[in-house]
């Protein structure tokens, strides 16, 4: 009985094997097409690998170029600040000269009044005195001169303040450099593990700012006072001068 059972079991297994063989026969074209696909894909993968290699190799150069832009901009800004300082010094010198002239003019005016009293009155002398006094334009132009100097002083200071943009953009460029380096590291790992890495993982590269970094990735050059107002409100909140709602509204 046991032998009969073994035989029927054998036939069952043979039948299974037959099914497998039949299935295998059906699978052969599929496997063949898979092999063909792999043949086509391998050069493509090699191309991708080469392309990633090339891109990765170019990244250090891109980083250097960004660093160069930062240092050249800083150099140019320093030169502008030197010129601005020089203009400011000149304006201050002019201002000092004008004050000296003003003092002398006061003295001159008093002396002239004394001289005028010594001159005998006549229509002729009156004519010359009037003409002489009309030539003295110092006091008529003084307000305009002072206004111009003040405007130059203000404009020069505005240029100085605008140069804050250099510090802010250099921080933004440092953040870009950091991001580029993160991409380079990701690409390098792709080259090594191309066959086992999901290409979409490149999208997951994030700008993780290391602790103690010397840049702020969110640095913004803006004339808006909104950020300072928000900061002030927060500071005031410590002294209970602002409500949490007001603060949240400004920071949202």
């Amino acid at each position, binding site marked *: 009985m046991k032998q009969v059972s073994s035989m029927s079991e054998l036939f069952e297994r043979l039948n299974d094997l037959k099914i497998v063989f039949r299935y295998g026969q059906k699978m052969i074209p599929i496997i063949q097409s898979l092999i063909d696909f792999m043949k086509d894909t391998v050069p493509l993968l090699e191309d991708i690998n080469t392309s990633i290699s090339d891109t990765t190799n170019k990244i250090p150069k891109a980083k250097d170029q960004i660093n160069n832009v930062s240092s050249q901009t800083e150099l140019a*800004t*320093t030169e502008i600040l030197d010129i601005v300082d020089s203009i400011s010094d000149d304006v201050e010198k002019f201002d000092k000269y004008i004050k000296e002239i003003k003092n002398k003019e006061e003295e001159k005016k008093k002396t002239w009044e004394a001289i005028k009293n010594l001159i005998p009155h006549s229509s002729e002398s009156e004519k010359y005195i009037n003409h002489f006094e009309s030539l003295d334009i110092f006091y008529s132009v003084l307000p305009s001169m002072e206004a111009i100097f003040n405007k130059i002083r203000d404009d020069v200071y505005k240029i100085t*303040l605008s140069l804050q943009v250099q*510090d802010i953009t250099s*921080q933004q460029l440092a953040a870009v450099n950091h991001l580029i380096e993160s991409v380079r590291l990701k690409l390098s790992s792709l080259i090594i593990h191309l066959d086992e890495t999901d290409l979409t993982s490149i999208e997951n590269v994030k700008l993780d700012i290391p602790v103690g970094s*010397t840049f*702020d990735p969110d640095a913004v050059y803006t004339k808006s006072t909104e950020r*300072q107002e928000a*900061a002030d409100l927060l500071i005031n909140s410590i002294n209970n001068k602002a409500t949490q709602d007001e*603060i949240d509204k400004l920071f949202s």
Partner: protein
Amino acid sequence: MNLKFLVVDDSVTMRRIVVNSLKNLSYDNFVEAGDGKEALDKLTADSAINFVITDWNMPNVSGLELVKSIRCDDKLSKLWVLMVTTRGVKEDIIEALNARVNNYIVKPFTPQILKEKIDTIINA
């Protein structure tokens, strides 16, 4: 009031801008440092400094670490500290205030804000 400022920033440009602004406000006594470490050295060496204007993001010792070191040091803890930084998010400002900065300016600053903050600090 005699104020001697220590201007701390790793950007030479920013240091010059802050110093020029202080000159514009008729202050003429200041020293400079390029990072928090240099700032601490200068503070230790010069007891006449009574007002620190510092950036946050700097190499070696950051502005925040500088503030914490100042507040932990018996000889320096009473110094006035104004932070001038690009960092304008709420969490950063709270962190700086927790470290006990006297006031906070978000870059780019205006001369009015700088004057207002200095006056607020020294008159508090």
